[in-house]
């Protein structure tokens, strides 16, 4: 290699490095923080947020969440079934007679089934009598998304964990990964168990061989509507839906004023569904 070319390469290399470093310096100047400062800021955040700084860091944008008030469901025992019914209709969830083929998006289960970590031998009857509405938790740190080999299930910027039914290969890794058991698989063609004259034409039916689950009514939320289950609860406020990242939102107000619990919090998945017992 002749000398000139080598020199040119050297200069090019050095100036590229300088350029890269240079932008970093400019960025810092613009944002007004040095590495030391930003580190200090992080520590301050940690001190404020206690041990759980994770939630405090992700404040930008929307993160949808839900608070389910079990007291309201106890007051109106028919409400739970209404919620399940409206969800099944809105999303064309088939009703298979055989339990083995079952597909569920939202359903009612016992308190002990929903909250397996909240165990003690002498629960009060009031707690045990609860029928708990369970659905996908739209975790902030979703194990199903991590497991999916094709990104057929993914987390939207707004926190909703969604499915691409056309990409799913049906490996069911996400079903094994979900610690809440909230995912279902189309073991057979769901259209056979649907009355095709009565389906909701606004939402697609699925094909056999793919996984599905509650989608927080992403198709409705996108249009500025509330999820179907929230809507059907009417003025009871049995389910409150909103943006967890907005400190002024109704859901944050409810969370501030009530003691709420989550399902299996120790797994670090950070569910977006909260319960008032």
């Amino acid at each position, binding site marked *: 290699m002749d000398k000139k070319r080598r020199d040119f390469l050297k200069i090019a290399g050095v100036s590229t490095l300088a350029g890269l470093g240079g932008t970093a310096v400019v960025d810092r100047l613009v944002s007004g923080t040095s590495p030391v400062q930003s580190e200090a800021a992080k520590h301050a955040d940690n001190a404020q947020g206690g041990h759980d700084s994770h939630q405090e860091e992700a404040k930008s944008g929307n993160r949808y969440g839900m608070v389910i008030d079990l007291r309201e469901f106890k007051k109106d025992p028919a409400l739970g079934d209404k919620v399940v019914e409206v969800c099944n209709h809105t999303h064309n969830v088939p009703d298979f007679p055989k339990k083995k083929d079952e597909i569920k998006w939202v359903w009612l289960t016992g308190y002990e089934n929903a909250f397996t970590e909240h165990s003690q031998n002498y629960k009060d009857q009031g707690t045990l009598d609860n029928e708990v509405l369970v659905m996908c938790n739209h975790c902030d740190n979703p194990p199903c998304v991590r497991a999916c080999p094709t990104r057929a299930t993914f987390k939207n910027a707004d926190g909703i964990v969604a499915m691409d039914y056309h990409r799913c290969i049906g490996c069911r890794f996400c079903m094994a990964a979900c610690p809440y058991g909230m995912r279902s698989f189309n073991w*057979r063609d769901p259209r056979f168990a649907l009355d095709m004259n009565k389906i909701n034409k606004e939402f697609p039916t699925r094909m056999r061989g793919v996984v599905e689950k509650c989608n927080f009514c992403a198709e409705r939320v996108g249009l500025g509507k509330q999820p179907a289950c929230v809507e059907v609860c009417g003025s009871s406020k049995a389910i409150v839906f909103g943006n967890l990242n907005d400190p002024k939102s109704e859901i944050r107000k409810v969370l501030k004023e009530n003691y709420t619990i989550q399902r299996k919090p120790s*797994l670090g998945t950070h569910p977006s569904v909260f319960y008032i017992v």
Partner: protein
Amino acid sequence: MFEKALKGNNNYWIWLAFLGAVMSIAGICYIRQFTTGLTLTGMSRDVSWGLYISQFTFLVGVAAGGVMLVLPYYIHNYKEFGRITILGEFLAIAALLMCLTFIMADLGQPLRALNVVFYAQPGSMLFYDMLVLNGYLGLNILCGWVILTAERKGTHPPKWIYFFVYLSIPFAVSIHTVTAMLYCGLPGRHFWLSAIVAPRFLASAFAAGPSLIVVIALILRRVANYDAGKKALDKMVTIIIYAAIINVFFVGLEFFVGFYSDIPGHKHTLQYLFFGLEHHGHVYDNLVPFMWGFVFLFVIGLTLISTPYFRNNKNDIWIGLGCASIFLSFWLDKGVGFVLGGFVPTPLEEVVEYYPPANEILITMGVWAMGAFIVTVLYKIAIGVEEEMEA
């Protein structure tokens, strides 16, 4: 070299015809499943993986077990394994093809399988499993074929092949490690969420794979006049003894952690597998006979291969039975109990048991027949080449 597989005695052809028939039946069953859906299996939303994935898991071990021949021969220059190393490599090829077939059989949308490549997700363990399984398959085909071709020509294999031979050793470990990681990285499945799953898988693989090779070698001695060599078989039996004991030791450690800590989540699956799990007044125990079969066959197998009376017996039937017992035992442990048990109890703490119907069992048997078919043909070629050299 394929022409070697086209010449054989009547027994050879009857055996292949039998396997072909089983495969054809399975093919018809698979067409049924393909057109109707996986509802023709025993799987449900609670037990979402069944026989296909459990067979896959076990067979990854059989494939990895071949490394117990490759490693002593190529790294430690243990010459006695020279003749049978090819058996390990060819067995790995067949086992891996079975693994891939089982995965395809399990997919809800098999025609979309390539999405794993098109939309590769480096965060998903299944992506890495695909990489290492196909990588190990390629390595075994390459090494097996090149070395056998060289042997046939009476020359030394080319130097460059050793790079791939050595590479295949960490690959063998990786296929079973990554397969273990499919399970042990899932939160909320207590039975699988254990750091000892990968080492346990490897130990069980290093016992089950060589056991099968010993059994096949003893069969070949009778039907194909092929002698693997007494010293080689004896060394393999030693390897099997150690690996088998380590596997069961690891299972024992799971028991200690579960029952001494007395944490319900850590005990439930073990209780379900070995003693039956009581839930709402009903005892669920459909896997209990399989798990005690695992224990029983392990004891029988270990006795046969480790006590001097049987091990040094002139009649090698005892060694064969012992190795067959170990193989079957670890199949019950990993090919039945491990995967199916992990789904009990469900994340909602219910108990749902899994019963595979005929269609699913026949497909499973068909894939095993396919594996046996491939092994038969590949071994026929390998033995044909050796006979040619000796003649």
